[in-house]
């Protein structure tokens, strides 16, 4: 495929702002948790996403090891091998393949009732590089019943374009997060997490096309974006008295809003239970919906300064269940524990104002998300 054509193909799926946000998120949004050094563990995962003409798969590895009872070092490597023939790509270009590698190093340090987490991550693909630094402080207060998290991340991205030497732009991201987890009863906890993400720079895609009067032109997005997300969560042990197999219930709600006019609602309900000694079932239902960004249009009737046909900024919703089954292969108490798990999630995506070019019908598709993990704690 000619570089220009391939570039156009990549264009349809590239979202520079999202790229940056996610890169920054690599180390961010750490949930509030009790102040303990993370346990020593190793994980290997094979992951697969298949939906809407896109297949993304690859391995991932995580190793975490503590030293001197105060410090824990961690390293992660994550690979995404993408084969893309999504509707965006086939509309304006042709199928392509691309691989992204991400590495991350982290350090956790415990001081009295505080846990300090410092990490750096780097994500590299042929036409996009992202580097992130992150610091989080977790503090136990009120006799350990309340845990408070303060966090900050900064990310710098370089945006490239196939066929164009050098970089076409840069983007910078700042993330601030605040979280509180509260033990309510011996069975229930609740948490609230607030995160602000601010972006500046080249937040559009050099490839993606918008549609105005039926003609395709390059999209143009604002150079800044400020967003906030508030997530409320409650988790409880609902095991009946005398029952052997433990059960838990979790309910999450997240409200998202930003200066691009996007408002999002996420609702997730989860139910976990031990099936038998060594067997654990995790299940959940998730629903998400959003309205479109101010400058989003499937086919703009007038030419405006900012215009985009990025599906992620359209009016859409998705829904689906997920299930994970884990089995303990070997367990030597106090020494090590080895588990094998398999996970499957089904997601149904529906777009209200993104249409299929030839038919004019609203676009929708199904996706399957699969992974299997071999993990060990030691």
């Amino acid at each position, binding site marked *: 495929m000619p570089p220009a054509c391939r570039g156009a193909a990549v264009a349809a799926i590239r979202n520079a702002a999202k790229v940056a946000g996610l890169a920054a998120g690599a180390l961010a949004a750490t949930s*509030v948790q009790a102040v303990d050094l993370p346990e020593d563990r190793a994980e290997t995962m094979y992951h697969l996403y298949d939906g809407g003409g896109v297949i993304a798969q690859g391995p991932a590895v995580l190793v975490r090891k503590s030293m001197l009872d105060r410090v824990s070092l961690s390293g992660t490597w994550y690979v*995404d091998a993408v084969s893309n023939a999504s509707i965006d790509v086939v509309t304006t270009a042709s199928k392509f393949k691309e691989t992204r590698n991400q590495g991350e190093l982290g350090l956790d340090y415990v001081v009295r009732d505080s846990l300090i987490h410092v990490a750096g991550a780097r994500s590299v693909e042929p036409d996009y590089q992202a580097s992130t630094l992150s610091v989080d402080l977790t503090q136990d207060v009120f006799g350990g019943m309340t845990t408070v998290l303060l966090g900050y991340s900064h990310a710098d991205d370089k945006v490239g374009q196939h066929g164009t030497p050098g970089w076409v732009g840069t983007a910078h991201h700042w993330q601030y997060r605040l979280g509180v987890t509260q033990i309510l009863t011996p069975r229930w906890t609740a948490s609230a997490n607030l995160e602000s993400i601010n972006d500046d720079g080249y937040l559009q895609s050099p490839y993606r096309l918008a549609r105005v009067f039926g003609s395709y032109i390059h999209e143009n997005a604002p150079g800044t974006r400020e967003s906030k997300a508030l997530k409320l969560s409650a988790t409880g042990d609902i095991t009946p008295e005398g029952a052997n197999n433990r059960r838990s219930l979790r309910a999450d709600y997240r409200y998202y809003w930003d200066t691009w006019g996007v408002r999002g609602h996420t609702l997730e309900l989860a139910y976990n239970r031990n099936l038998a000694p060594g067997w654990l079932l995790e299940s959940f239902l998730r629903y998400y919906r959003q309205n479109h960004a101010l400058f989003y249009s499937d086919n703009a009737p007038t030419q405006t300064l900012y215009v985009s046909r990025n599906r992620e900024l359209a009016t859409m919703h998705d829904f689906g269940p997920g299930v994970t089954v884990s089995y303990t292969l070997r367990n030597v108490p106090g020494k090590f524990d080895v588990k094998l798990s398999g996970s499957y999630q089904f997601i149904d995506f529906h777009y209200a104002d993104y249409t299929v070019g030839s038919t004019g019908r609203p676009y929708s598709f199904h996706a399957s998300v699969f992974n299997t993990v071999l993990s060990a704690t030691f």
Partner: protein
Amino acid sequence: MVRVRPVLTAIVAAGLLASTAGCAFKPIEPWVKPYERERLADPVMKASLDELPGRQRDHVYVVREGSRGATGVQGGGCGCN
């Protein structure tokens, strides 16, 4: 204004009551003792036993939805799939 005055009066009264009866209030003690938190520490209470699946899931959402942040999951990556 007619409605504000009773509210202000109630607030002032409550403040006076609290200040005069201050010695009667005990500081709030942690009401769930550490030895009562065994159920909360059970693996069944975790959203996920492993860390890596959460990254994949978060990545799937972030590259297809307009929302981001406060997920409580360490994600990672780009918007390319």
